[in-house]
């Protein structure tokens, strides 16, 4: 039986069948669109990175929850159709910066349910802002899969990098990063009011 398997395996490369692995034939191009959109959008990845650092600071239980809850909330908000309050995209981005940066700077010791609530709120804010930024051509579900997958990877890498950091200067550096993130959020609120004044 094993011998037949080896023969079959050796014969496979000689069967002239197209692999169709390139994006034009696989149809997975939109997944990469979603990944690139997320990676090239600081308004998306900076607050999520700040939340990942915060989750890492709080410990592995928090980080595991955040890892699954944020991409799901982001995807849910992205899937919902056009929002009636479209135009508030910049304010949603500002809120996500303020929320994640403020928590990280203050190093708040929230309970696990509260961390989940915050993570859901941030995922919803970022997902809604993503959906609004894509108008009038809403992204397909494959692009959203790419975006949610990127969020999962970013959260996993950043939170796991933050988990073992306990030295004083690393904690200060993380809190300073949070302070800078929140400061950007505060300025964005000012820009928003400035633009709507």
């Amino acid at each position: 039986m094993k011998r037949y398997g080896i023969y079959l395996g050796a014969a496979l490369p000689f069967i002239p069948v197209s692999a169709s692995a390139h994006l034009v034939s696989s149809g997975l191009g939109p997944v990469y669109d979603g990944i690139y959109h997320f990676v090239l959008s600081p308004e998306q990845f900076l607050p999520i990175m700040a939340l990942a650092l915060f989750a890492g600071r709080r410990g592995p239980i928090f980080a595991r929850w955040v890892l699954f809850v944020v991409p799901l909330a982001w995807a849910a908000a992205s899937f919902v159709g056009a929002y009636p309050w479209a135009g508030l995209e910049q304010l949603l981005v500002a809120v996500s910066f303020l929320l994640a940066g403020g928590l990280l700077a203050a190093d708040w010791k929230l309970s696990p349910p509260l961390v989940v609530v915050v993570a859901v709120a941030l995922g919803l804010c970022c997902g809604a802002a993503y959906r609004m930024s894509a108008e009038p051509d809403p992204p397909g579900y494959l692009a959203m899969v790419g975006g949610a997958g990127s969020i999962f990877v970013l959260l996993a890498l950043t939170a796991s990098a933050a988990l073992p950091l306990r030295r004083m200067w690393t904690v200060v550096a993380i809190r300073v990063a949070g302070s800078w993130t929140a400061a950007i959020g505060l300025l964005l609120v000012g820009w928003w009011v400035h633009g709507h004044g």
Partner: protein
Amino acid sequence: MRGEAIGFLSGLEHPVSGLDHVIAMVAVGLWGAQLGAPAIWVLPVTFPLVMAFGGFLGLVGLPLPGPEIVIALSGVLLGAAVLLEFRPRLYLAAILVGLFGLYHGYAHGAELPPGESGLLYSLGFVLATGLLHASGITVGLIHRWPWGRQMLRLAGGGISLGGLSFLWSAL
């Protein structure tokens, strides 16, 4: 894409374009290093937030009295604090630095160029401010050596004199 890149670069350039701002930012770092823990880490966490709040006030157009004079005064007083190795209680140092940060942020917010990309501009602005502050702290670490202490005090005197010249111009 071009507008966005200009947004980030203009934000990065804005805090370093005015020498009155630069000497005050660096002086805050030097003073923090002189004061040691916990000021050395409390100030960098709180300062960007207070400054951004000042920027917010400037952006929304709320009036603050005499920003140019207070900014020049910040150079004089922060430089003098470094020169004299002034060691007030932490909350007093935080209030003083916070007040000056508010005015510096306000001036930046009120002077923002129109039509820039808000997010990228803010990103560059906060990054440049934080790095100026960090450079002050890094230089201030020479405080651990006796010759370093003297050099720091000398630098404080220079900053104070620079602030005086800006104050003279503002008046």
